[in-house]
């Protein structure tokens, strides 16, 4: 079985035409997220086994893996919604599992999370949904500042006209965009996407992927994207990590992994 490193090294020497501009890694060597020998299990189910991963500033990393392979658990550990059993997990150099609540909230202001189910608050309007993180983090207390940021975030996702609508009045694609706007309102330096195109038609899925790309460029954010959608992967991934059997099975660019002869890697590209 190839490890992350040897597959990456083996393919790195191959001349590859990139679908996405740039190759794996970024011009910056600063690791904003570091996971070292991370373990997480639920009873006998070992979801993450000695999982190693680094996210560098400005790059988009896609985590690929089968359903139930622990991809969502991985990003929930990163944001502090779940605690790993053992291993190192730092975000901006801070040890997330050991961080007191107040400091964790400070980190969460810099890390956006787009939930798979959008997680828009049903009882609130779009405006209130977007205002919620601003108010809860105690930022921008004047109404004018808040209104300006809400409008800016909604304009970025092309849905300024929905500001006073309820989430139930929106389509699936619109809800996803609003959720993205809510994620962006704090101008995060890292964005974690949990299956951003699941449940959307291919056209809307592609629109969301392009939007994510645009966001990454505009905010110069780093992203971890959990997805099964290979169109999204092709559009957005600077680097792909394959999470198989709880470990980082392969690590490389889209073209590197597409050309791999490894059966487990190939099945994602067929």
């Amino acid at each position, binding site marked *: 079985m190839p490890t992350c490193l040897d597959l990456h090294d083996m393919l790195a020497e191959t001349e590859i035409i990139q679908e996405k501009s740039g190759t794996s890694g970024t011009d910056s060597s600063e690791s904003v997220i570091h996971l070292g020998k991370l373990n997480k299990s639920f009873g006998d189910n070992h979801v993450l086994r000695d999982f190693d991963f680094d996210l560098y500033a400005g790059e988009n990393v896609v985590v690929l893996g089968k359903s139930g392979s622990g991809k969502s658990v991985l990003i929930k550990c990163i944001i502090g919604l779940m605690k790993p059993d053992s291993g190192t997990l730092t975000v901006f150099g801070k040890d997330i599992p050991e961080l007191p609540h107040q400091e964790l909230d400070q980190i969460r202001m810099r890390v956006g999370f787009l939930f798979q189910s959008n*997680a828009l608050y049903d009882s609130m309007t779009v405006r209130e949904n977007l205002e919620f993180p601003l108010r809860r*983090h105690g930022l921008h207390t004047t109404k004018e500042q808040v209104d300006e940021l809400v409008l800016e975030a909604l304009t970025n996702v092309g849905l300024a006209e929905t500001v006073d609508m309820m989430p139930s009045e929106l389509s699936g694609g619109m809800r996803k965009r609003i959720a993205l706007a809510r994620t962006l309102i704090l101008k995060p330096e890292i964005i974690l996407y949990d299956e951003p195109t699941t449940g959307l038609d291919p056209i809307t899925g592609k629109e969301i992927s392009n939007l994510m790309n645009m966001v990454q460029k505009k905010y110069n954010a780093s992203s971890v994207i959990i997805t099964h959608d290979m169109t999204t992967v092709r559009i957005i991934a600077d680097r792909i990590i394959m999470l198989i059997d709880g470990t980082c099975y392969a690590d490389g660019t889209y073209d590197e992994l597409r050309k791999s002869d490894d059966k487990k890697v190939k099945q994602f590209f067929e």
Partner: protein
Amino acid sequence: MSAATAWRNVLSETGDIARFTGRFFREFFRPRYEFAEFLKQCFSIGYQSLPLVALTAFIMGLVITIQSRPTLVEFGAEAWLPKMVSVSLVREIAPVISALICAGKIGSSIGAELGSMKVTEQIDAMEVSGTNPFKFLVVTRVLATTLMIPVLGILADAVSLYGGYIGANIRGVVSWDLYWSQCFDALKYGDVIPAVTKTFFFGFAIGIIGCYKGYNTQKGTEGVGISANSAVVVSSLLVFMIDLIAVQIADLFGLT
């Protein structure tokens, strides 16, 4: 499922509810205080339940009076009707019936709301947004039910007594002044205070069970239905158990 497994599950869930209640008290005393959300919940739980509780209480007052009348007439004690009705309504029927109505309406609503928030990751989203979801969702709701259900209970007392007045005048004639003076003559502090006190416990139980069931929802949308349903069943059962304990305590202090 064997009886032993069923008992183990009941005991395990009782332990979980006790831990959940303990967490409620820990979070309750710690800042930050979610005052705006608490007021919103008071409005939703109290004001919006008012018509249903009032209508039920009115009907109960009316029915109890109509059904008690023939027995009292048989003993030549028809004049005692307002006294008997007022004591039974204020001590027992109005608080318990209003609590059961609230267990159905509020318990299921809290269970379903928090359950759907849980399965659609809204609770996680709240945590990521720098909010303690337990404090924001659970503490505010439990406090609101604890304070609003006694208010609804007192309202139910008044409306059910009015229903009693209407009932008393269907077959007989009792003047407004006589009816109310007889009602209040019959009532002592020992009738009112334990009855009102137990409604605080009813409210707390309804809130904590609704929140516990909703907050711990599993199995997706199917789980939301299960949570709402079991919130009603368990909180209704608790209302009766609290009532039983309250009667025993009142008896111990000579208030019965």
